[in-house]
């Protein structure tokens, strides 16, 4: 169902003018702001952050607001400042590029917390929040190396979350089977599923039997290609459940619930109970945020011995004995 901004506007149209001109409100109201570059209407990282914001609104009853900024680092600082000056306690900047501006603004607004997605920063109340996809991707790499001939990775663009995830995959696979072949393509877009499909097909032609995408909406093209190629080609469902598209090919599913993680952090801040004392990284040790499950309906499900091995690896990762991003 379409929900448009009119509802949101109705909530605080005239009020907005008042808050803008007036000083920060009393701390009675808990407010959280979100800054993204681009649009939250598109599927992808911004949508993930937006959904997290909405979860905070629902679960904590917070007043929320967000701004879809242009791709302009110069505008970040004043946007942070605008929220902070209006008394927002938590402001989430969705992307590492927000960290410099947050650090600058944080000096002037000691009452606000600045959460930065995909960042490992920690400076006072500027806290990086990272979804460590390299951990589940490490597991996928292990499985691929155990079960397959060679693997192909299809990424949207070369940005930290994706290159980290791919690094995890590579480490997992190469630790398990040194010399395991891994190809990689960046299609240069998060929505061009035609390119993703095309890239997958050309990899399959080259004899690759494990293909894993990390390209937001464009990933669908990969699952379509894998499905059409037949059950001998294997893949994993990443971030979203694609088993409807390629149920026979998907050996496992990695689901990330960023909202749950954010709610956990924000709740801690709001109640003053658990304020992060370092940057936050969600990994396999946070099952409410990152989940990796097997698909038993696959044409060739992951055999029990492999699962057992994977479980060992997983506990080592959680225990910190394996660094998935090393190298």
């Amino acid at each position, binding site marked *: 169902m379409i929900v*448009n*901004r*009119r509802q*949101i*506007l109705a909530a*605080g*149209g*005239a009020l*907005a*003018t008042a*808050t*803008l*001109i007036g000083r920060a409100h009393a701390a009675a109201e808990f407010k959280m*702001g979100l800054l993204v*570059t681009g*649009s939250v209407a598109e599927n992808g990282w911004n949508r993930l952050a937006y959904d997290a914001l909405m979860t905070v609104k629902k679960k904590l009853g917070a007043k929320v*607001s*967000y*701004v*879809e*900024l*242009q*791709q*302009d*680092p*110069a*505008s970040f*600082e*004043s*946007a942070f*400042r*605008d*929220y902070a000056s*209006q008394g927002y306690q938590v402001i989430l900047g969705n992307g*590492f*590029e927000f960290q*410099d501006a947050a650090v600058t603004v944080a000096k002037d607004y000691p009452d606000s917390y600045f959460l930065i997605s995909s*960042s490992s920063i920690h400076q006072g109340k500027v806290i990086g929040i990272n979804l460590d996809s390299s951990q589940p991707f490490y597991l996928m790499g292990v499985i691929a190396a155990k079960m397959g001939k060679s693997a192909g990775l299809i990424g949207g*663009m*070369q*940005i*930290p979350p994706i*290159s*980290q995830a791919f690094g995890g995959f590579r480490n997992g696979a190469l630790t398990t089977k040194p010399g395991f072949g891994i190809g990689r393509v960046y299609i240069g877009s998060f929505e061009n599923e035609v390119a993703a499909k095309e890239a997958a097909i050309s990899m399959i032609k080259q004899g690759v039997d494990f293909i894993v995408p990390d390209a937001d909406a464009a990933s669908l093209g990969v699952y379509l290609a894998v499905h059409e190629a037949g059950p001998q080609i294997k893949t994993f469902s990443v971030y979203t459940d694609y088993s409807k598209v390629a149920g026979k090919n998907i050996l496992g599913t990695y689901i990330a619930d960023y909202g749950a993680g954010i709610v956990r952090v924000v709740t801690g801040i709001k109640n003053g109970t658990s304020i992060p004392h370092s940057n936050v990284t969600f990994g396999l040790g946070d099952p409410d945020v990152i989940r990796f499950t097997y698909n038993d309906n696959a044409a060739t499900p992951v055999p029990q011995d492999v699962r057992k091995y994977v479980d060992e690896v997983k506990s080592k990762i959680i225990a910190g004995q394996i660094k998935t991003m090393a190298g």
Partner: protein
Amino acid sequence: MDDIDIRPPAPAKLYLYDISTSIRIRSLQRLRAIGFPIAAVLVALCAGAALLAINGFNALDVFTVMIGGVFRNIHSITEMLLIATPLILIGVGLCVAFRCSMWNIGAEGQYYAGAVAATFFGVHLNGLPAPLHIVLILAAGSIAGAAWAAIAGLLKIYFNASEIVTTIMLNYIATIATSYLVTGPMMEAGVTYPQSTELPHALRLPILLPHTRLHIGILIAIALAVIVQAFLFRSSAGYALRVVGINPHAARYAGISVRRSVVLAISISGALAGLAGAIQIAGVDFRLYQNISPGYGFTGIAVALLAYNRPIGAIFSGILFAVLSAGSVLMQMNSQVPQVLVFVIEGMVILSVVAFGALGMRAGRSAV
């Protein structure tokens, strides 16, 4: 724009000149210089308001938040001026290109080129005294922008390749190249973020107002607007550019090298766009990212056109668009109106500017 239109004059005998017609011509010109831009902006704002109203927003509230927010305190005004700086610089440059009938749609790419060069020289060069180093950074940015623009100019004169298409393609190439540089050769060492190393503190542009980010870039922009205005209308070289823009045949006859003027004009506009990029790096961003422009190069077109290609006018139109742009963030923050509304208003401004230009031209013709 009106200068580009060449029409045969009407027959002779009915032009009876006297003082009053002369005054009429002049007052008409004045009307066009100030009245038309204001009218154009009003029309565009009305269109924006209509769009808001249709989609269920309270246009008056939205605009109040927007304007009121921008001018709520010194700090917010300086933030607006920060946006105005690149817009004025790019707009002023485009005045030169457009006056010479070069349709440079590539200021965006030239801005990137300038930013890349500035970052490169800011990060990789050591041992220079800071003031000199800053000057060098800005010069490098200007030269890079000029060179990037000159590609289109040279392709135009040697291969008759439409500068409209080539400059747009160069925009894409510049952004893709920047993306390559910050993920590859220019990426900050030891970090996984696609961004360059930060510029040393000493190389930051001097701040004008303490406790704000307002740096001397705005003064550079205004000074350059005045200088370029003088260049266009008071120098021999500027005269030559304008003649080429209005009538290349006459320029050739006058011994003006059309090819040189064309390349010069687009290079000047590129240099100013590149300078804008360099100033942004040295004054605000301090490092290079994959995306560093919210479309300054395209808004700059609207800035120049609204100024009717007069550099001094670009100061005012640049500030106007900066107000819209700065206000749009507050607009979304408080009313959840998508910020991209600004693009709609920019497009409407250009349309009303050309409409008033064309209609005013006709009115002018029949009045004289």
